[in-house]
């Protein structure tokens, strides 16, 4: 049973560029959340996708956008990259609406983005 897969694992961009990160959720999961983990920090919630719509968003600017596809996979897009966007971007999948209790998140290994 495949877990959460993310691509690419590492990438380097320059300021002002755009980046797209991809995530395939764990088999059977229908909800995808994205988190940003800066060096030495805990993961910070970016947004969550369910039924192909952004269901909730954290305190991130509009430069951060996403998409969920009918097969539940997801993309995170970041425009106009800043040096401060350098971080590990984690995708986490879960099952259901999240209202029925404390659904456990299953995390991918992450995509490490370096902005020069």
């Amino acid at each position: 049973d495949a877990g959460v897969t993310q691509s690419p694992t590492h990438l380097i961009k320059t300021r002002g560029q755009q980046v797209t990160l991809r995530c395939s959720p764990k088999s059977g999961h229908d909800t995808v959340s994205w988190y940003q983990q800066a060096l030495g920090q805990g993961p910070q919630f970016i947004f969550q996708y369910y039924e192909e719509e952004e269901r909730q968003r954290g305190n991130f600017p509009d430069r951060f956008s996403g998409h969920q596809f009918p097969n539940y996979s997801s993309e995170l897009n970041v425009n106009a990259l800043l040096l401060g966007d350098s971080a590990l971007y984690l995708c986490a999948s879960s099952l259901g609406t999240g209202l029925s209790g404390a659904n456990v998140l299953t995390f991918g290994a992450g995509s490490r983005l370096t902005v020069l």
Partner: protein
Amino acid sequence: AQSVAQPEDQVNVAEGNPLTVKCTYSVSGNPYLFWYVQYPNRGLQFLLKYITGDNLVKGSYGFEAEFNKSQTSFHLKKPSALVSDSALYFCAVRDMSFTYKYIFGTGTRLKVLA
């Protein structure tokens, strides 16, 4: 605002000794609390959660955590540490006012010495 704090950046313990990784939380209602572990170049792995019921929660790999409502704490424990337990540990709380968001602490690096 909901928050979680991990007061120790690093905890060192000798192999075979008991370990404790501390976590305190602040929420407006009943908390949903979690512990995750992160190994190098790996994603976060779920260890255990507290929703309701028994204050002592047992999880994966011999870990357990004790929920203490009066002290607003959820400390992670293990009776006998292994070198392979060395990793980065995160406490998280479910933000019930922001339904789908989990708030993570800054992490505690556990180093088990042989």
